[in-house]
């Protein structure tokens, strides 16, 4: 207790030197807090836009679909999705359940024909956003709420023979809202069937690959084209992403209890790209933390070494007055810790202020890898990162004080007292 007070006073002795050390630590903490908040925001936005725009939180298929469905998609359809849809909607965490029927098809304007991935969807169950004028400044905002209609109107169940096209796909066949299209595909029975559709709107998501290939049409129309009443997947959107594992458990239990031949995937299973990006950022963040730990170690080491050298006589005096060697060790460790703690506290203040400022103003960012939309970064303040930054400062400060403190505690008293 008294040792700590003495340590703090000793730190305040060389104001300039301590200030520089504290600033070095504080800037390190600020960098950690800001970058941590930046990554978290980026990952959050990527995740939420993937979930709302494409994968949902959970997808349910007929057992075997994921493994073998690619070769024979029509062998793994959910024939009677009504009952299970109803059961899932009753779960409290579930916001919506949308049925989908995806198939590959040929899309033609008469002049040009290309292949595409068609998705029959339930328009009122799939999160979709229409871009408004005020959204244009903050393009990431609508993305968090679903796929974005950038021209025309969203799909409507009441207009069966319409479709919305991904931005890239529409570009490839020069389609705009109102363009007539022909969609050709196999029926589930193996025959060829075709439909006349009108382009209702153009959409984009956070994934360029998705926007380059996907056409969406009302589920009923798709079923009519394929001559089936089945769907291939149920896409579940939850109120909160954190509840995904819990809902997964509930659903698996439901399948087992009812003997339903279904399987499910979470958004994490489906968005490999997000998971890899998260791991990459995690690694980058660790490197940053390491670099900052090294800066803290070096600056504290230097400061403490100088302190020990300057205060040799003082150390000798304290030992002569009965302070034991470990008392001296402890005193200098405390001084290091005090510097670390002050740096950490200043860093938390500075980091929070910077991050909060950036959050309020927003930093315009170019599209992340694999995406097309510019976005606005709003770094978040993450309590665990604040705590981490503080602990990092104190712990590394103590570690780097260890050697100077040890040397101080090993001084020969008589020599230290003769020292001038």
């Amino acid at each position, binding site marked *: 207790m*008294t040792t700590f007070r*003495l340590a703090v*006073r*000793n730190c*305040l*002795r060389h104001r300039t030197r301590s200030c520089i050390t504290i600033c070095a630590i504080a800037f390190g903490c600020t960098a950690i807090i800001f970058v941590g908040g930046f990554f978290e925001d980026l990952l959050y936005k990527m995740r939420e836009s993937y979930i709302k725009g494409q994968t949902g939180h959970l997808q349910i298929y007929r057992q075997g679909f994921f493994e073998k469905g690619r070769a024979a998609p029509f062998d793994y359809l959910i024939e009677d999705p009504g009952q299970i849809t109803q059961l899932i909607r009753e779960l409290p965490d579930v916001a919506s359940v949308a049925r989908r029927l995806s198939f590959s098809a040929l899309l033609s304007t008469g002049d040009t024909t290309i292949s595409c991935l068609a998705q029959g969807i339930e328009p009122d169950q799939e999160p979709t956003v229409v871009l408004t004028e005020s959204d244009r400044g903050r393009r990431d905002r609508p993305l968090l709420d679903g796929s974005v209609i950038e021209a025309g109107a969203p799909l409507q169940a009441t207009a069966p023979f319409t479709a919305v096209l991904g931005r890239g796909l529409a570009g490839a066949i020069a389609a705009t809202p109102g363009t007539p299209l022909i969609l050709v595909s196999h029926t589930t029975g193996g025959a060829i069937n075709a439909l006349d559709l009108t382009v209702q709107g153009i959409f984009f998501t956070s994934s360029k690959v998705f926007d380059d290939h996907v056409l969406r049409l009302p589920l009923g129309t798709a079923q009519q084209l394929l001559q089936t009443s089945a769907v291939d997947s149920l896409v579940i959107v939850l109120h909160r992403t954190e509840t995904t594992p819990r809902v997964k458990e509930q659903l698996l239990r439901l399948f087992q209890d009812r003997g339903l031949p279904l399987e499910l995937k979470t958004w994490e299973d489906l968005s490999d790209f997000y998971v890899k990006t998260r791991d990459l950022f995690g690694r980058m963040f660790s490197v940053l933390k390491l670099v900052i730990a090294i800066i803290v170690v070096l600056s504290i080491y230097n400061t403490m070494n100088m302190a020990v050298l300057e205060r040799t*006589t*003082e150390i000798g*005096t*304290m*030992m*002569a*007055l*009965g*302070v*034991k*060697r470990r008392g001296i060790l402890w005193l200098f460790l405390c001084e290091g810790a005090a510097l670390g703690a002050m740096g950490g506290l200043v860093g938390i203040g500075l980091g929070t202020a910077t991050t909060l400022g950036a959050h309020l103003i927003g930093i315009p960012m170019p599209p992340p890898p694999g995406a097309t939309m510019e976005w606005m970064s709003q770094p978040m303040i993450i309590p665990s990162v604040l705590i981490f930054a503080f602990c990092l400062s104190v712990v590394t400060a103590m570690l780097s004080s260890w050697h100077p403190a040890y040397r101080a505690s090993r001084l020969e*008293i*008589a020599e230290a*007292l*003769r020292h001038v």
Partner: protein
Amino acid sequence: MTTRESVLEIVQVTKQYRVGSSPVFALRGVSLSVSRGEFLAIAGPSGSGKTTLLNLVGGIEQPSSGAVRLNGVELQHLSGDVLADVRARHTGFVFQSFNLLPVLTALENVEFPLLTHRLSSEQRRRQAQEALDRVGLLSHAAHKPMELSGGQRQRVAIARAIVTRPAIVLADEPTANLDQATGAQILQLMRNLNRALGTTCVFSTHDHNILRLAERLVHLSDGVIVDAP
């Protein structure tokens, strides 16, 4: 007077340093006995071994041979931590350049040696105030060493040396950094405290002017005790 028990017993002590490969003898067989309440001066020219002798008595250094018995405890066998306890309990130190801790106030400096004692903080404070009062500096309790004159600093240091009520106070050239008059006052203060508290005091000096205040005088020359020149 002859029945006074001895506080300090030095028996055939030598101290040898190595400078490079050649040995240097700082003390070459010193024996000395100091009784409780004595006020003893060690005189001698520079390099005669005064500091070394006081360091051995203070448990700051260990003799190369011989024995140092302080308050019945043989110091030469003790480990560092035990010696630290002996110093904290039985020994007070006054240094040539005062050696106050600059971040502490006068009162806190006096209190410092008590931190290793098991005392309540009020008790520590009271004892420190009492010691500071004895050297006449209670009014300067809140001053930092930087804000005190040399004489005042040494008085604070003396208060710090007596605050634990030690068996012996060791003062290595306590007046060497002070002018004549102040030095004499400091030594007079030590003498008064020695009388009032009965604290044994051993100090070293090569200043003949203050030697007259000593109750007993030991001359050291080239590491041995000699008869007065």
